[in-house]
């Protein structure tokens, strides 16, 4: 496990979409000092937003009082600076191989979150967490 530095962030939110705006700002607070360009910061915020939205909608089946733990860290990836975000929920477990983005050839609302996450981030790993819930670890490398 990587050390949490003073620039990193750990927070627990309730399963509630009203928390998303605050989480985005916490992501920005870690990503900007690493040096990510503004567009990359926005894309990382988007990926985190989509991941938490999926937990709210699919992991817990809608807003509720259950927790979502979020850890945002500066790490090394291939000897370069990177951002790593870990999202741990306590909802429904899903086989990681089933978490795939849908085809973009079909234009319809919904189902775009996983595609966005996998497009924006360099490394995305879903795994069942202990006895319940899922853990998502995603990383993006800073390229000057």
């Amino acid at each position, binding site marked *: 496990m990587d050390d949490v530095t003073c620039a990193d962030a750990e927070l627990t939110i309730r399963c509630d*979409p*009203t928390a*998303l*705006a605050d989480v*985005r700002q916490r992501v920005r607070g870690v990503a900007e000092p690493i040096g990510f360009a503004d*567009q990359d910061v*926005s*894309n990382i*915020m*988007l990926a985190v*937003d*989509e991941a938490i*939205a999926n937990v*709210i*909608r699919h992991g817990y089946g809608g807003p509720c009082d259950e927790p979502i733990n979020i850890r945002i860290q500066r790490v090394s990836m291939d000897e370069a600076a990177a951002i790593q975000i870990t999202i741990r929920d306590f909802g429904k477990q899903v086989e990681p191989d089933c978490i795939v983005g849908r085809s*973009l050839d079909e*234009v*319809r*609302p*919904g189902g*775009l*979150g996983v*595609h*966005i996450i996998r*497009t*924006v981030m360099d490394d995305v790993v879903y795994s069942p967490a202990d006895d319940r819930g899922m853990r998502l670890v995603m990383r993006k490398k800073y390229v000057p």
Partner: protein
Amino acid sequence: MTDLIESVSRNENHTVVRLNGEIDLHRSPELHHALVDLCNEKPRRLIVNLSKVQYIDSSGIGSLVDVFRRLKRGGGALFLVSPSERVTSVLEITRLNEFFTIVADEQQALSA
């Protein structure tokens, strides 16, 4: 009006709605509800000005896709006006920039 819906203006052929702020899973139900209400008025053109939208996620994009389909069923058209760089990036990631009619300003939508 709300924080999200800055203004709505109508004439017999078109409706212009100007949005503002950040659209995420928290705000997109409000957006969807408001735009569906406008769709139900059956404008020939629904012109959605996104120039002041600083952020949009897939739930907001999904609302726009649904509104597009509702309008099309009724013979209407949806125009997205002047999306910011961030909004454009989300449209490109989802390849929906190829699907929507995106114009630089409201006048262009009115004269299209």
